[in-house]
């Protein structure tokens, strides 16, 4: 899946890209199991064609979009983003996709729409993890509308120049680079515009550990570990010192203004 290098500010980091092998075998995708290597082992059962995404809620033009239409909705761009997992590790991944704002503009949100909810596939037939009760399925994520409209918020269809591997959230997923990785829902089936803040899956599972915003923030620790540092997968060896985590994962210049005046300890 080819993509022209993105011209969006901050969209192409010059850091060393994580090896493809690591980015496709070290995944959190609980629908296929909770171990890091489960998705690579079990995601082959996922059926990605045909695929439709329902876009509804507080919009003037709701609709069902087939994958083929979505692929053509805007020009595919390559974006090289840092990915920071809430667990304290990070990667650098070249995604292919376009700003979610293109799709948002197409459906014309109403003035009352304040949030966007992302619902991902929960198919017990093809996703063995859905049978366990680790999370309340389907996995739901959400963003404030202005976050969803930010040009860095990516609707991704590919990575490393090819179509998304199934374990990475085929056929389309969200990528929000300044938030912890779990905010970026995989295998999206529904995008809904709402007035109320969506109840997201991890917040439902452990409200004191995972907040709605979940912006990468080295100053607000997870209750069970520090978020001040991270380990870069595939690059940092056993004896490499952990690297410092950057505010908003290094995207502060681009997204900081979205949170002006907010107490980020309270809205973690």
């Amino acid at each position: 899946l080819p993509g022209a290098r993105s011209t969006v500010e901050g969209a192409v980091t010059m850091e060393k890209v994580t090896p493809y092998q690591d980015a496709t075998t070290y995944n959190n995708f609980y629908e296929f199991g909770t171990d890091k290597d489960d998705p690579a082992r079990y995601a082959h059962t996922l059926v990605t064609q045909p695929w439709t995404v329902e876009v509804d809620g507080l919009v003037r033009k709701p609709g069902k979009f087939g994958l083929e239409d979505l692929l053509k909705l805007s020009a595919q761009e390559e974006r090289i983003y840092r990915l920071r997992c809430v667990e304290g590790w990070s990667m650098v991944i070249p995604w292919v996709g376009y700003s979610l704002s293109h799709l948002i503009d197409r459906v014309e949100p109403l003035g009352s729409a304040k949030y966007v909810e992302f619902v991902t596939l929960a198919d017990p037939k093809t996703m063995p993890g859905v049978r366990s009760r680790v999370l309340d399925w389907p996995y739901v994520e959400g963003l404030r509308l202005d976050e969803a409209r930010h040009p860095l918020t990516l609707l991704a269809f590919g990575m490393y120049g090819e179509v998304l591997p199934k374990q990475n959230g085929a056929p389309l997923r969200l990528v929000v680079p300044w938030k912890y990785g779990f905010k970026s829902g995989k295998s999206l089936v529904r995008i809904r515009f709402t007035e109320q803040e969506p109840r997201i899956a991890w917040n439902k599972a452990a409200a004191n550990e995972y907040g709605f915003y979940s912006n990468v923030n080295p100053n607000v620790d997870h209750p069970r570990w520090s978020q001040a540092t991270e380990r870069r997968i595939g690059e940092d060896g056993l004896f490499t010192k952990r690297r410092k985590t950057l505010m908003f994962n290094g995207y502060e210049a681009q997204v900081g203004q979205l949170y002006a005046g907010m107490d980020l300890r309270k809205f973690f």
Partner: protein
Amino acid sequence: MAAAPARGRLFDRALKPAVFLLSLGPFAYLFWAAVANELGPNPAEALIRSLGEWALRFLCLTLAVTPARVMFNLPRLALLRRMLGLFTYFYALLHLLGYAAFDMGFDWGEIVRDIPKRPFILVGFTAFVLLTPLAATSFNRAIRMMGARRWQQLHRLVYAVAGLVILHFFWMRAGKNDFADVAVYGAILACLLGWRVWRRFAAPRTARRGVMSR
């Protein structure tokens, strides 16, 4: 014991070295895997977690010695208890050192701040601290110096350690709501400790008459 048949003695002599070598196996494998970069994409996490899991496994094995010895009437198993206990401490120490080195970069100030801040680290660290006097008094002279009764009382701390270790593991997994492994080890430890409670309070006196042990 003087009249033990030759075959029994050979077994005794081979048993301890064999278990010793087997117990070093996980360490040898992890050492090799770390050097050969075979620990996967996140080697530090893989190493720390497997060291912790091996410490837990050895704790279960140590606590299984007495029930197995009594139930299967295998008095010689008692020879292994100290060694397995010390291996529990060995893997627990490596687990702690792994955390200190690979997670915290041996930043002692940071470690001292981290331990009380995070309940699951505090609980794990407490379990390690409680294991230390047990390891330190594991040699025969310590038993003589302390007196068997006091020594035994001290070593009952291992029951508290078992509880703390499961809590540590439970909290570690709690954020992911993933309790399958915790349940397995919790059930094993519950059986091993429950057997002792049952034997002490509920078992008929006859069961205790023949075998001179707790």
